């Protein structure tokens, strides 16, 4: 029988308190690990290059609302902007390109956006990445050509069981109960390859087909041809670069100039989204605090378990000393038991935490299209184990010292 076997024997002989200590540490660690992972992935998702748009030209209103609608297909655009204004903005030397879009329709809970077809060829949803319909990328079909054609994002197609040739009637609005364009049947001709962005959750129709939907008034329908009175919800803008990949510094002047207008504003997603993150950052700080508290409570439980076990094991430890164990050996037993429990709890907790992220990521992906990965290695995955081992050692200091100072003869019943 060696030292390691003695440690495990001791842990097994107090299997209930050992298991409870490991489980409570695991739960605290799982909470901590999952919160950190979700927070880091959320931050990454929300700040990844503005999801393809350097800037969004939109109507007056909340910049956050405009960003959420244009990039995440949430909320609604507060108003419309004139097509002529969009064209004027395109003429600015700072603007390289623009892709206009119209939001406000839906199908079975998924947003239906009317958009310029260059969205599928010129728009980079991530640096260097364009949308694809190729089968080898996971896509199907092609970009729409006619007015009664549509393409679906990967997640929308999966959830709604969309296949090529299937038809639908768009709803005029995004809320339940909004009227349906019953006389406008649109056919799916393409399914985009998955991108891991919210664009997977949208359905797209040609920009001009929006105006021709039956049910829109004649003033809207005339916009299909009358550019002077045409309106759009907004446009994704590509800003010129200087010195490689640096955004043209004139973007701030452009933003200032547009924002003085009574009809439009320029929103830079990379300025807006971190502010959103700061707002929700409070929430996750609170959750982190709770997770830390749970972990510390678990370590306190470990401390109490060790102290209690020590009281019951005094004679056993004295017997071990009689058999030849030194003071350091019995102290080492206590420390190793604690290390085992805190280490096992940490590893188990990290595994459970990744499991929590896996479950959560499915829910988040279904709701927002944002991808979270259970295999993502967060900063917590690297510091939790060493931190818990250190804290486990700290929790064991008092009982270990008590074991060290254990009086052998005092704890053995001797009669002479």
């Amino acid at each position: 029988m060696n030292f390691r076997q003695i440690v495990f024997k001791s842990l097994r002989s107090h299997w209930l308190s050992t298991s409870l200590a490991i489980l409570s540490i695991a739960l605290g660690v799982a909470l901590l690990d999952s919160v950190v992972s979700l927070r880091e992935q959320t931050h990454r998702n929300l700040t990844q290059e503005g999801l393809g748009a350097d800037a969004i030209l939109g109507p007056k209103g909340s910049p956050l609302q405009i960003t959420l609608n244009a990039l995440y297909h949430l909320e609604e655009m507060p108003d419309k902007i004139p097509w002529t204004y969009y064209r004027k903005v395109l003429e600015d030397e700072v603007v390289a390109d623009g892709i206009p879009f119209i939001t406000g329709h839906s199908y079975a809970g998924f947003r239906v956006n009317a958009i310029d077809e260059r969205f599928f060829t010129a728009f980079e949803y991530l640096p260097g990445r364009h949308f694809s319909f190729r089968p080898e990328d996971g896509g199907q079909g092609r970009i729409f050509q006619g007015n009664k054609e549509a393409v679906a994002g990967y997640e929308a197609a999966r959830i709604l069981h969309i296949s090529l040739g299937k038809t639908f009637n768009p709803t005029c609005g995004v809320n339940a109960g909004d009227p349906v364009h019953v006389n406008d049947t649109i056919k799916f001709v393409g399914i985009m390859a998955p991108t891991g962005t919210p664009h997977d959750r949208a359905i797209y129709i040609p920009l001009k087909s929006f105006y021709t939907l039956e049910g829109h008034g004649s003033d809207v329908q005339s916009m299909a041809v009358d550019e002077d009175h045409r309106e759009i919800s907004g446009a994704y803008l590509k800003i010129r670069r200087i010195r490689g990949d640096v955004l043209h510094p004139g973007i701030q002047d452009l933003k200032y100039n547009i924002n003085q207008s009574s009809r439009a504003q320029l929103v830079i997603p990379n300025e807006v989204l971190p502010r959103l993150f700061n707002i929700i950052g409070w929430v996750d700080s609170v959750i982190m605090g709770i997770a830390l508290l749970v972990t510390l409570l678990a370590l306190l439980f470990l401390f109490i378990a060790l102290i209690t076990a020590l009281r019951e094991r005094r004679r056993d430890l004295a017997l071990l000393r009689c058999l030849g164990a030194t003071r350091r050996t019995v102290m080492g037993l206590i420390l190793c038991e604690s290390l085992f429990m805190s280490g096992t709890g940490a590893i188990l907790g990290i595994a459970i935490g990744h499991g929590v992220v896996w479950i959560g990521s499915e829910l988040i992906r279904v709701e927002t299209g944002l991808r979270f990965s259970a295999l993502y290695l967060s900063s917590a995955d690297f510091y939790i184990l060493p931190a818990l081992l250190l804290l486990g050692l700290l929790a064991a200091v008092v009982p270990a010292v008590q074991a060290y100072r254990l009086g052998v003869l005092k704890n053995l019943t001797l009669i002479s």
Partner: protein
Amino acid sequence: MFVGTFVKIMSATLLAAVCCGLLPGAEKEDGHKAYHHGCLNALGTCENGHAEVRIDGDTLKLWFVGGGTDTNKAVRITNKEIVLEVTLNGQKAPSEKLVLKAVPNSLAEEKVGDCSQFEGKAGWLRHAKRFFAISTITLKSKKQTLRIEYPDGYDPD
């Protein structure tokens, strides 16, 4: 003894936090931000409005913006041009005149006579490190002295 030391340390930490802008009190700094990275010159008082001035090479750009914390909002004036009497650093009397022409922001439907941006060119601007300029504008239908202290800005408050 320890309580006293603890209180002192906490107070110092709190003070440092305020200075670093960690507490809400620091938000005021952002409101007086010069949006175009120029210097802000109050139009009479800070609340009235500001003239933000920036020199790019031989061009002086001037934006009329809001008072208080609204320095990112344009304020239009009816002047078609502004003539600045400029006293260069080290001199006692105005030695230069600079004419600023209206540059309407077409994206905000501005036009000459209803404009917030002005520009003027001069060779001496290229080497101007410090100067004082004065003129008169019409702001909200009233005559208003335009006083520019470059590069520090002018804030009578």
